């Protein structure tokens, strides 16, 4: 019985738009540097109080399904290595699941004909993947011809005729982090941090936060601006949390796995058609 390998994109495929989460993570890293981490801030503070919708709906069910059916999962993202690592760690901790390593990231890109275009390509990584799942060398051709499914929201990153590619809609949920209260006080009371925020145009704060002279001023500006961030994203977020891509995918592939049938070009075409319809 051949093992199946699913290769998943990360941003807007298994998680939403992480723009603000990323800014929160960067802010924490910078504050730690500026203050020599005194008072200490936990590097994973950004993970606290994060919206449960940040991870695409039914992804846990999908992971459980993959686990039950011995499907090997890999990540191929155009994010930087550092960024992909901390987001994937978050997902792994949330669902007590471990993706296969290595995580393929921007640093592993295959650069296309036009040097400005990054392309995703797995041919060059077959050995690494086979080694990671401890498959026998004889299985290589069979696995890479008939037992691979790539799930991505962006077909432009893959060669145009990739027969293993299942295109999903972008999951556009945008979580707004609810910042830690102690961190906010630290920001308010430290001019260096405030200067950094203004000069870096961090999306979590308005530029006018700098003119906040008092406690009232600072927290009025912070809450007003944050409520505005929530308001701007509210309608879209409320729509996309009803996304059911992973829920719909499971029954489509389940019979094929049960019958141990390969993931043929025809089958993946039919999958793509199901999601287009």
């Amino acid at each position: 019985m051949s093992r199946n390998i699913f290769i998943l994109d990360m941003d807007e495929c298994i998680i939403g738009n992480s723009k603000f989460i990323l800014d929160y993570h960067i802010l924490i890293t910078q504050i730690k540097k500026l203050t020599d981490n005194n008072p200490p801030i936990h590097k994973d503070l950004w993970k606290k109080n994060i919206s449960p919708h940040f991870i695409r709906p039914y992804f846990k069910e999908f992971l459980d399904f993959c686990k039950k059916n011995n499907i090997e999962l890999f990540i191929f993202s155009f994010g930087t290595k550092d960024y992909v690592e901390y987001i994937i760690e978050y997902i792994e901790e949330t669902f007590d699941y471990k993706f296969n390593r290595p995580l393929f990231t921007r640093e592993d890109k295959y650069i296309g004909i036009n040097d400005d275009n990054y392309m995703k390509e797995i041919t060059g990584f077959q050995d690494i993947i086979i080694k990671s799942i401890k498959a026998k060398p004889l299985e290589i051709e069979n696995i890479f011809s008939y037992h691979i499914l790539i799930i991505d929201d962006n077909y432009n990153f893959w060669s145009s005729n990739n027969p293993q590619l299942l295109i999903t809609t972008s999951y556009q949920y945008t979580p707004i982090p609810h910042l830690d209260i102690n961190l906010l006080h630290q920001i308010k009371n430290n001019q260096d941090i405030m200067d950094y925020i203004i000069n870096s145009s961090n999306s979590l704060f308005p530029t006018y936060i700098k003119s906040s002279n008092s406690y009232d001023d600072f927290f009025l500006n912070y809450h007003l601006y944050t409520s505005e961030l929530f308001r701007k994203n509210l309608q879209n977020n409320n729509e996309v949390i009803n996304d059911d891509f992973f829920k719909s995918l499971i029954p489509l592939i389940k019979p094929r796995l049960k019958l141990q049938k390969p993931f043929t070009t025809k089958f993946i075409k039919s999958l793509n058609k199901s999601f287009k319809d």
Partner: protein
Amino acid sequence: MKKKKIVFGLENVLVGNLENLMSYIGLIEIIINSCKHKKLKGNLCHINKDIWKKNISPNFFRPYLKEFFKKYSSYDFYIFSSTTSKKSLMIVELIEEFANVSFKRPILTIEDTFINSSNNYEKKISHLSSYVIIDNKEMYNKDLKIISPPPYKYNYIPVIDSHLLYLLKENEIKSIDILPEIFTDNYDEFYFNYHLFTAELFKSVFEKNKENMKDDFLNKISISNKNINV
């Protein structure tokens, strides 16, 4: 030689309005009690009972408070509060920490007042001699010498601990005085309501607070023998 003494009122004398802070403390007490009686379980039962003490606005304390206590460091300080003993003690301890001062015990509170012939609570100081009173004069016998400061009415809005707020949402605790009408099942709507509600709270007190923060009573006051009650 006997040390001179100053007896202070608490709310609107040394600190601003207590209402919002008390609501926050009340919420924490409800949680802790519910956990004790097993009505609540999980992470919410691990919250620190002193979480409300963190990050209190310095404007909650009357301006020039630290300077005043330093200037009159040769005096003994007493409190006669118009609120309950439990609340009074919490606030007194906050002031002690903020201004690096210590007040003589016992802290006198509403329980130490009596109802006078006009059916009003009256503060009576019978255990001290040679003392100055800095308080709202309405609650004292008219014969006493009182230094009555303009009421310090800074309205402190506590910003609820982020993780506590998250746990309140997770546990679907909905009836909270301090956060009326923000609860909804939807995560983003909940936080949108929370931030908007809190911004509105800050906005509603902003101008008055700004005025109160200009208060310089403790900077200007000069205590002399003519203020002493014998």
